[in-house]
């Protein structure tokens, strides 16, 4: 057991836990931030994606011991009121089906747009293809990312 200070969505949290516990479970079971999902536990589905210093990472693959001095953002913290361009575009394009994959998808897409405000279809393919949507909402997701990019470019 060790004590960790975890910086998530602008707040500091003290956690007493095993250094090996993946960030995913620390978020879900200790901080009760359940928007970040468990899908595979081995880094192959993207459901658990969060931002680490602005970069998308798989929280199921990051032990608490590796979180020192890092800043994390989860789906709950990506906007104060659900108005991130991706969140809005996702609703406009009616993307979600079961919705379970969508938090991870939005976190990845948001990072893509920050890095590349006008992504091409190829950019979207290479950025999002480590994620699984078992409901197959890819076409609408692609549209939503282009829509969010248009909004970003206009503001």
């Amino acid at each position, binding site marked *: 057991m060790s004590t960790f200070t975890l910086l998530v969505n602008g707040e500091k949290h003290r956690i007493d836990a095993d250094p090996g516990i993946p960030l995913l479970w620390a978020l879900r079971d200790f901080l009760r931030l359940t928007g970040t999902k468990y899908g595979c*536990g081995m880094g*192959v589905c993207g459901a658990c994606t969060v931002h680490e210093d602005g970069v998308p990472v798989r929280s199921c693959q990051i032990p608490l011991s590796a979180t020192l001095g890092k800043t994390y953002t989860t789906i709950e913290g990506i906007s104060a009121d659900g108005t991130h361009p991706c969140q809005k575009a996702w609703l406009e394009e009616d993307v979600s089906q079961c919705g*379970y994959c969508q938090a991870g998808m939005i976190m990845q897409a948001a990072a893509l747009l920050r890095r590349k405000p006008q992504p091409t279809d190829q950019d979207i393919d290479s950025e999002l293809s480590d994620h699984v949507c078992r409901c197959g909402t890819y076409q609408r997701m692609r549209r939503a990312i282009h829509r969010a990019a248009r909004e970003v470019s206009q503001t």
Partner: protein
Amino acid sequence: MTATRREFLKAGTLAGAGLVIWLELPTSAAAQAAPIFEPSAYISITPDNVVRLWITRSEMGQGVRTTLPMMLNEELEADWAQIQYQQAMPGGHFKGIRLRTSGSGSTVGTYSALRKAGATAREMLIAAAAEKWNVPPSTCRAQQGKVIHSPSGRALTYGDLAQSAARQKVPDNPPLKNPKDFRVIGTRVKRTDGAPIVTGQATYGIDVRLPGMLCAVMARCPYLGGRLATFDAAKALATPGVRQVVPIKSGMAPGVAVVADHTWAALQGRDALHIDWDPGPHADFDSDRLLQQMEAALAQPGFFVRNDGDAPKAIQSCPRKLEATYEFPFQAHAPLEPMNCIADVRGNSCEIWVPTQAPERTQSEAARLLGIPEDSVQVHVTLLGGGFGRRLFVDYAVEAVELSRAIGHPVQLLWTRSDDMRFGYFHPNDLERIAGGLDESGRPLAWIQKSVGPDLSVIGLPSEKDLADPKYYFNDGSPWGSFDNPYNFPHLKADFVPLNSPVPTGPWRAVMYPPTVFARESFLDEMAHAAGQDPLEFRLHLLQPGDVLTVGYARIDRSRLLRVLQLAAEKADWKRPLAPTDGRLHGRGIACNVYDQDCYIAQVAEVSVGRQAGDIRVHRVVCAVDCGLVINPAGLEGQAESGIIWGLSATLHGRIDFKNGAAVQENFHDFEVIRMNESPAVETYIVPSEHPPGGFGETAVPPIAPAVANAIFAATGKRIRRLPIAPEKLKA
């Protein structure tokens, strides 16, 4: 047995685009005296101006929380924003009312019943306003959540009227709109529950957190039909955070649960368990060997499925004969949210939070396990992170109940991805052999199809007595896709050889259609090419004169199938040759199907194949649909996209193998699914239809595999007869 078996299968199908509600309309006497207005078991209107609709189906991505309110509001005329939904729970209010999320079942009654619920409430609200104003009800109208007195323009909200509406007489036959006056049904409406999903606030089963709740995972016996021999929990119990280790036997495989303060501790504890399993009778079960047995069984006579004319004799007389065998593997459901359940057993009662398609069964099986009345079990249905048929089974819920009883604590039992993938109720593997004959002028004369495969074990296999009836499977309408073959062959014979295995099998999106339709539509393509005809024209001829085919209980309107084939072909520019510029081999393929009599679908796929590597890309899928009246076209298109991706995953990647008595694949790295980079552009075209609505959640799945396989043939001249498609076979 026959009716229940088919009912079960139908119930086992995935819900359609929200067209799934089934409800009766009990107009309770209690409503007369109630302070709130409850004109039926399903809605209430309260003085705070809220219209509440109890959703009697599980939301698993198909949009029931959107389409059910739409059907209600077509007649109710409330303000869309004032409608709230609440998930119905089995028992109590809903005792005897079906909550199971079912597919293509009685949609006509469903749709009518919700409309009637809305119309009843509307008429009572109007009567209440008329009484208050002392005017004839015929001078009042309902609009946007208000009753308006037309001559004077006076208005009262539904909230204002709720209490007095509750005292009005319940009308027997409230007037229903003429469908041409619909203003809600048939419009594009976005999901009502989208916002909590994109902000991470939506609560799936896995997200429920109760005060004092413990977390558990299980080690399950890796051998089909094996048992727990002995286990040593010492190391697991020494893991920090682990509280208890408990053997569990009520699920599909026996195992040992590790209970801990949090999920990670439970997972660590599970890794530290030492368990000896008794492998049982199927320790060497191997799906490749099963396949060999199935190949041998192709020589056996099967159960009667269809027998029109004299196909064996007709085929003898044909100058041109063809024969081919098609193979479909076991498949897993793998919804992205793995199985999980929270149970809290306290003495003689129990509360359950679970993402399930089968709330009543969860309640009754929990009650049975605990030996308590069903009323003492409360089941909260959460949001489902996908269902696809897997969540009709309640094994994971019953395990959680057994565990909570054993530890006397609320507990969440979580399945890992590997548990989820390896301990499923799989889509059975399947072989289809088809023989066809063409006469001198290339006209198709005869068709003989034999299906070999495990029956769906989970519904209970037929008894010897059942099987003494040679028409047992015919009466049942099995196998779908072969039984209801829509084409007009003068001679058509189909039979089925059930061959069982120890693998638990159950309904998987589109149930029996995927293998039979893959074979049927591929073989039609083979026949068309053998006859030197265009595969579209070949099909159109075989559906002439566009009459209604009656087979067993099924009535298939060939004119509707003709129409969707023509529409898909037109939208896909079927007649215009492709002009690729990327150096790859391109082709188009077509396939169609009738899903359980009500839904007609045709798809054209455009694919390309790498000349050297044989890699496959599906560029575009054009889909034409006639599934009767469409409630929400946006929802239907979503289900078309979803069904096509689902079917494409099975076409290009998915398979479950068994070796040494256990499933081999265990996560998304070895059970691959379609991802963004492989996702085609999907276009959906809807045939306007006055037929009653049909469920659409599964319809788009079956045709995609043959459409792609036929396109590959058009591109390369290589015929695909085994799924998933191996690109090595397409290498130069």
